[in-house]
């Protein structure tokens, strides 16, 4: 048996492509690619939960925990080493999601949506009223360092971009493996019929708990990478409207493949730049309308369209 499947090979090939883009594209566009990777991990986290039928309207919680861990580590302890920050962020996230998981794993459907939202709003409220952390304005982050190496300016952003790309793709590969693995199968079954899952001898609660913690962890990694790239964090990261955008990306892109939310985020980010410039007060309205159209006409998202397209290509090949 081959070690990597098609998706995983594509993710591996994506790394050199991203590095070429880094040097080929104009800086402002590279910035969007970089920012989209961080956000894409959060969208991926929303996507894997949606595989279990769980809609998280509070994934921003862990996005924000990642960002603020990076910020607070540098602000209070003078740590700017991205590897140390990642480790701290993951430890904090595993602890928080491990505890919250005991509460949330009991809930499904709208209750899960509502409670994840409420929980992330707690953090939003706490950060918004914390003067030491800049209240609603947040605060700035220093440039990242790497095991004692402090690259400045252009080199710094190049290194961060490459590290972001490596981590994002590595997370995507691991998530793809996880989805193909036993728990990945069980969560799919939970979406379909939880009663039967229990009657087959598996604990739906434990599987959801594990899923929730994994989703939290990659969201936090995304949060660290995103805020390091941007150099700034605000409580908005935990606001439910931010989480709503991740839900939007997954609805639009579909849950068929780990690539879908990553690419979906990038497309959305680039579109947003233009849309907000042309007409700042209709961006959300466009999102809403696109979301309704997707739900009605393309319930499995854009990825299903892409899949059908690929299928048609490959079915034509032998004939040609």
């Amino acid at each position, binding site marked *: 048996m081959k070690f990597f499947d098609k998706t995983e090979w594509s993710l591996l090939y994506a790394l050199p492509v991203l590095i070429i883009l880094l040097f080929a594209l104009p800086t402002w566009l590279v910035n969007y690619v970089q920012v989209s990777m961080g956000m894409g991990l959060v969208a991926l986290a929303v996507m894997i939960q949606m595989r279990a039928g769980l809609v998280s309207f509070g994934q921003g919680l862990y996005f924000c925990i990642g960002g603020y861990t990076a910020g607070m580590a540098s602000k209070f302890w003078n740590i700017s080493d991205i590897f140390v920050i990642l480790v701290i962020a993951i430890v904090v996230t595993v602890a928080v999601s491990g505890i919250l998981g005991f509460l949330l794993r009991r809930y499904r459907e709208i209750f899960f949506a509502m409670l994840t939202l409420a929980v992330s709003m707690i953090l939003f409220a706490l950060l918004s009223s914390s003067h030491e952390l800049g209240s609603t304005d947040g605060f700035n982050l220093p440039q990242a360092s790497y095991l004692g190496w402090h690259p400045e300016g252009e080199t710094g952003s190049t290194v961060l971009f490459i590290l972001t790309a490596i981590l994002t793709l590595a997370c995507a590969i691991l998530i793809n493996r996880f989805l193909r693995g036993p728990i990945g199968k069980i969560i799919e079954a939970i979406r379909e019929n939880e009663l039967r899952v229990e009657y087959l001898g598996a604990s739906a609660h434990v599987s959801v708990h594990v899923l929730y913690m994994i989703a939290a962890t990659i969201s936090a990694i995304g949060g660290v990478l995103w805020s390091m790239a941007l150099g700034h964090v605000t409580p908005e990261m935990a606001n439910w409207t931010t989480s709503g955008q991740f839900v939007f990306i997954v609805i639009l892109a579909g849950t068929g493949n780990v690539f879908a939310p990553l690419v979906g985020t990038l497309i959305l980010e680039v579109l947003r730049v233009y849309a907000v410039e042309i007409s700042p007060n209709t961006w959300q*309205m466009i999102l809403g309308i696109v979301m309704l159209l997707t*739900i009605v006409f393309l319930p499995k998202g854009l990825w299903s369209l892409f899949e059908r397209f690929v299928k048609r290509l490959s079915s034509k090949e032998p004939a040609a």
Partner: protein
Amino acid sequence: MTTTVAIILDGFGFAAWLFLSSVGLTLIYGVMRILNISHGGFYALGAYSAAWAVGLYTQTGNTIALTYLIIPLAAIIVGTLTGLLVERGLLRFMYGHEEVLMVLVTYAVFLILEDATKLIWGTESYVAYQPAYWLGTIDVAGIPYTIYKFLIIGIALAVGAGLYWGLNRTRAGKLLLVVIHDREVSAALGINVTLFFTVTFVIGTTLGALGGALTAPEISVVPGIGAEVIVMAFAVIVIGGMGSVGGAMIGAVIVGFARALSVHLYPPIEMFSIYLVMAMVLAIKPYGLFALAEGRKI
């Protein structure tokens, strides 16, 4: 002593606002099983239209007294029309889908309403303090308290009583309980389920708009108030038990007092306290205090 009185007054004040802002949400969920995120959008629409109408009216220099009619009227017009538009134009085509999908649909509606509000009224803030100011204040145990707040408490009680009466004492209300219990059977009995859905949705959205409209004189109306209120409303109806009007009232009182207590005793945890009581309630009763019963599946 003064702190205690202040906590009690503010507790009921917050509770009245919370009840008015969330009862429409729980009503729609109870009848239609739709968790209506766009409720926040209706709240904002109500607040903007009331603030805008009051602003226009006060420029004419006539008596402020009439604004107490203008506020509910603005809410009723905008809540009913927009509610009808959303239900007839969109939601009715989506009935029968999973509850979670309906959440996403109403989220999309929320996004659309947010921008629609911005397109109509712009992004600057609206202030319509006159109705709150005009009634003056009274002293309660040495604390000046605006009479407008008492008015809102009165309206909240009236809305609660009205809904109770409507649901339990009228023919339509009793039929509605049948619809809630079993849609298919009620359709087979010749009850016009579609009509009940439309009317319920419109009443729910109008209540949401009313909540916003009545709050408008006390705040400055700015973009984003809809997104804020929906979170509070969730907390209230989760505590009370989704779909229960009585539960929403109890939930509003609990959240209102939690907030009043923290505001007066330890302000930094004001927002935190709301979620704290919610977490405590859910730890004991996972589906809220007055949750609707679920039937046996096998």
